[in-house]
């Protein structure tokens, strides 16, 4: 932006300098005009007459008129667009465009930053991460506490926890439409895996831990996708 502004101003200045020579030329023309006017007055005056005959007078008039016409032609040429003017104008327009584009991009980045940092990272992520982390941390203890009883573990611990994670994931709808169904699929698969692990009403601790840890990794991957999708918007 700075380079283009300097370029445009430099070209514009050089153009002004080139056009500023014109008044000097016209000054000469005016001086010549005044001198010739005096000559004409001299011609009219019966007392002082530098022209010996009418042929010389006619020659000088021709020279004066030709010079005057060529000066007018130069004036007309000054008003047309030179290469420098076109380049300067283009650089100026480009500079303005760059300025507005930068402003627009900055505003857009601020909105993205607000959405990502405030809504996602400070508002939506913490309760969700807290829920899935507590599932990992507490599940083993809960199973021991409930004597490895599958019915008690599922009804008193896992299903309420599963429903809680599912409900929190619905809050992400404003940022990602695919997040909530993806979370629900992970939870359903986890439910299936735990249900299949039940043997004579008993759940084994390692089976529960493995299944929940696997689901946790998938949850984290989905959270990453939410961040990626918010950046591409």
């Amino acid at each position: 932006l700075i380079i283009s502004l300097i370029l445009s101003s430099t070209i514009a200045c050089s153009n002004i300098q080139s056009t500023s020579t014109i008044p000097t030329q016209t000054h000469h023309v005016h001086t010549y005009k005044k001198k010739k006017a005096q000559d004409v007055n001299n011609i009219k005056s019966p007392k002082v007459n530098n022209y010996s005959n009418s042929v010389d007078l006619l020659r000088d008039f021709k020279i004066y008129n030709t010079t005057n016409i060529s000066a007018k032609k130069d004036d007309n040429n000054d008003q047309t667009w030179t290469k420098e003017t076109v380049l300067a104008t283009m650089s100026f327009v480009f500079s303005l465009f760059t300025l507005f584009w930068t402003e627009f991009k900055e505003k857009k980045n601020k909105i993205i930053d607000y959405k990502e940092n405030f809504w996602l990272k400070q508002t939506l992520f913490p309760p969700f991460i807290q829920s899935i982390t507590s599932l990992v941390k507490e599940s083993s203890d809960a199973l021991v506490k409930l004597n490895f009883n599958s019915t008690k573990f599922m009804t008193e611990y896992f299903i309420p926890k599963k429903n809680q994670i599912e409900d929190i994931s619905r809050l992400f709808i404003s940022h990602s439409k695919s997040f909530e169904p993806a979370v629900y699929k992970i939870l359903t698969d986890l439910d299936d895996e735990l249900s299949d692990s039940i043997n004579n009403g008993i759940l084994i601790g390692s089976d529960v831990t493995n299944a929940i840890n696997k689901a946790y990794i998938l949850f984290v991957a989905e959270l990453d996708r939410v961040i990626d999708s918010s950046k591409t918007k």
Partner: protein
Amino acid sequence: MMMIVDFTKEFGNQDLYSGRKNGERAREQLFSKPNIVNDGKWKFISRAGQFISSSYFLGLLGDSIFSFSTVNEAFKYINLDELDQASKEECIRAIKRGTTPNGDLF
């Protein structure tokens, strides 16, 4: 014909019914019986202490759960009056899942 699923008599009268796959297996078992023609109407019966999870209901009801546009419309076809309260709530959760736009993904 209305499909009556009595959990106190069928599928081993267990305390817990969970998992979508288990629900799908139960559905296959139900429809494998002779002379079964379901008109889309369901009735569920369970005793106190029995728990049927939402994912199990999803598997049991199959694609029919996605045919309802609203929860109220679903209640015209699915009778939950004789279900235990906890299981009733799970069934409602399953129906809500089926009526949401993303429900057909599963």
